[in-house]
């Protein structure tokens, strides 16, 4: 579904990604871990071209994103949901309008259809009573659940999660992870950058360890956590587990 070939990204003189190649299949749940500064968020943001790669190619469902005109790229992004660390809900809109804005303004649904979809999604994320409220009235965990609902409203083929629980109070992490677990069980393709090792172990179909701009090791979680090969991964795991 997503194929990455020799992806590189620099910010000025700072060489963040130094050649990433991987392939993410439909239905996979890839969890990316690594120390801060390892480039894992940049890698994720390159997948939907929020960051423009310096070199390399990215394919999504057979089409090369890195060779696309901007207009086509926006059409692709409709199919690639993204959930941010800091939620980025639209503060001037009600929760319902946060969810319905994109499908309606892109002409994918009528306002009625979108409202119906929003009601379903709000029920799914357990926040049906919040439809008329504004983002500022919600807790962090609730905001993130709404952000997930907002990306689901576009019926995406894959959702990219950029440290979705890192900005949350500890007692709110659970509700967001539970929702993500539910999505995973329903077969959603997911790429998740996170520090939640429990989530990686239990939900991931593959865990990827990034360090210094490279994918240093990747494996299915059982093997990854019990039998790490790379010394840097072993060191990282010994510190976080």
């Amino acid at each position: 579904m997503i194929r990455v070939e020799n992806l590189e990204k620099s910010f000025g003189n700072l060489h963040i990604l130094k050649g990433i190649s991987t392939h993410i299949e439909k239905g996979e749940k890839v969890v990316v871990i690594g120390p801060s500064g390892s480039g894992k968020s940049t890698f994720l943001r390159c997948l939907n071209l929020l960051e423009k790669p310096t070199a390399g190619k990215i394919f999504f469902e057979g089409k090369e994103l890195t060779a696309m005109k901007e207009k086509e790229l926006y059409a692709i992004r409709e199919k690639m949901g993204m959930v941010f660390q800091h939620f980025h809900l639209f503060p001037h809109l009600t929760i319902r309008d946060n969810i319905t804005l994109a499908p309606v303004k892109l002409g994918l649904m009528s306002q009625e259809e979108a409202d119906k979809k929003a009601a379903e999604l709000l029920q799914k994320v357990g926040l049906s009573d919040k439809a008329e409220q504004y983002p500022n009235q919600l807790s962090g965990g609730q905001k993130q659940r709404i952000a997930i609902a907002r990306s689901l409203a576009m019926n995406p083929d894959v959702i990219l999660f950029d440290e979705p629980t890192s900005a949350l109070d500890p007692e709110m992490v659970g509700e967001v992870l539970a929702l993500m677990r539910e999505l995973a069980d329903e077969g959603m393709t997911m790429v998740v950058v996170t520090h939640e090792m429990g989530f990686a172990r239990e939900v991931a179909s593959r865990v990827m360890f990034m360090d210094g701009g490279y994918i240093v090791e990747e494996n299915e979680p059982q093997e990854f956590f019990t039998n790490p090969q790379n010394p840097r991964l072993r060191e990282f795991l010994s510190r976080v587990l």
Partner: protein
Amino acid sequence: MNFFDKLHETFIVDDRWQYLTNGLKITLLVTFFASLLGIVLGFLIAIVRSTHDKTGKLPILNAAAKLYLTVIRGTPVLVQLMIIYFVIFASFNVSKVFVAVMAFGLNSAAYVAEIVRSGIMSIDNGQFEAGASLGLNYPKTMLYIILPQALRNILPALANEFIVLLKETSVAGNIALNDLTKGGDIIRSATYEAFLPLIAVALIYLVLVVALSKLVNLLERRLAKSDQG
């Protein structure tokens, strides 16, 4: 002559008060349409400038906008007014109200543009990214996500700009437009009495500005309320 005789002499004789009321009409007319022009043009310039700042696109339009801002903000509005009237429209027979609207509108646009641009740039980049990640292109993100938030933030500054504009139109007498200030001046030259007509003119401006400020305060408070709710 006592005070009431002077009052009578200044405003009642020959219906001189009409210089003030007619002048006020012109002042309000010019302020209103100049504000409209300033808003429309100012928003366009701000969108060009911030689009360039954010995406690097529109380099030529951006350069033109920057030049425009430099020239307009670097020269006095009175000089601009006179250039438009005595140079640009020198050989055309156009209404002075139209010239004043153009001059003050074009001038105000430069200040509105910088206010709007600061409003756009103050919105967290995450809002642009959230829009893009949902497949909303730059213009749609701007229209539905960024501008509504920016507008709310800059409303007080914007309103203040129009209060300033109202007062600035008082130099329109230099192209012989009979605005409020000019009306007071005509009375002064007819009665050789400066105090009453000028104070009257000042009072009218003051009442207008205070009323407008009150309106802005009201608006601000309502916005603050809906921010929480």
